[in-house]
């Protein structure tokens, strides 16, 4: 069984790489969405505002 271009191993690796790519892409989108929600919520203060408030 030679490792030619059509070997099942290649499709398995491709599937793994696509899966990982989608997971990482999804994670980036999720962190972006979470950040947007956090900074637009009422209770959010930038660190500079917090330090000015306490000094």
């Amino acid at each position: 069984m030679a490792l030619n271009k059509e070997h099942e191993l290649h499709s398995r690796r491709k599937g793994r790489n696509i899966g990982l790519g989608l997971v990482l892409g999804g994670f980036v989108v999720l962190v972006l969405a979470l950040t947007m929600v956090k900074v637009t919520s009422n209770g959010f203060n930038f660190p500079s505002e917090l330090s000015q408030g306490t000094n």
Partner: protein
Amino acid sequence: MTDASLHASTVYEDEASFGDYFALLKPRVMSLVVFTALVGLLAAPVSVHPVVGFCAILFIAIGGGASGALNMWWDADIDRIMKRTKKRPIPAGKITAPEAMTFGIALSGLSVIMLALATNIFAGAFLAFTIFFYVVIYTMWLKRSTPQNIVIGGAAGAFPPVIGWIAATGSMSLEPWLMFALTFMWTPPHFWALALFMRNDYDDAGVPMLTVTHGRRATRVHILAYTVLLAILAIGTGFTSIGGPVYMAVAVVLNALFLIGAVRIWRRDEDASEVDNFKVERSFFKLSLLYLFLHFGAILVESLLKPFGLGGW
């Protein structure tokens, strides 16, 4: 076939697919974690932004999956022996034990940090404790040293609704602990029924299940005792703030069926069980899956009805 091609086939034939890594997270257990954590989050008297709620459930699920991967890493030796587990990625030769350990630790760290950032530090810390409890206290210590492994280890599987509640509120109260108690008391009869009809597995692996250490008669008695205690707890929960008419109706029916099943298991002897290939034990096990799902489903329905002036007492 050349030597080179033979070498290639033997080395790469078992290379893991994406699905093998996913299987390392114990997806079926993860589905229970997702559902109970979601109920804990939604039953809390604080509304959470959908994105934050989604993140909370996702990272609790990843934390649960990570502890599953670490469990498979530690238990790879006995997973190879047991019929039920020998097709898991490590015994099947798809993923090596060190790879599973690294994967589990990385996902544990990620899930704890992300849950803390998405919700609050308390929730993140509690998720970390849950992973520690499942991996160190249950998997490494109790599972192979005491027949009460299932009882104490069941606590790890019972924590998700508490984490969900803390993620929403940032604090603790009685209600999530009632949900915890429900899963905690449900776990022993659920697993002991499994141990009754998968007996050779645990015997062969040398895991001190109650069936091995105290005998099958004692296991049947224990199933009945825990089911009675569970029924009292489940009905009692119906009178608290997370209960209501829907929950109570579900609890009464299911606990009656569960008690009948436990009594039938208690009354049977081994010969009768062998004759019908553990039919009663198997149906009790199946019912136990439905039992937990519907109890938490009813708590969810009660909490979803509350904004409309319905739900609860």
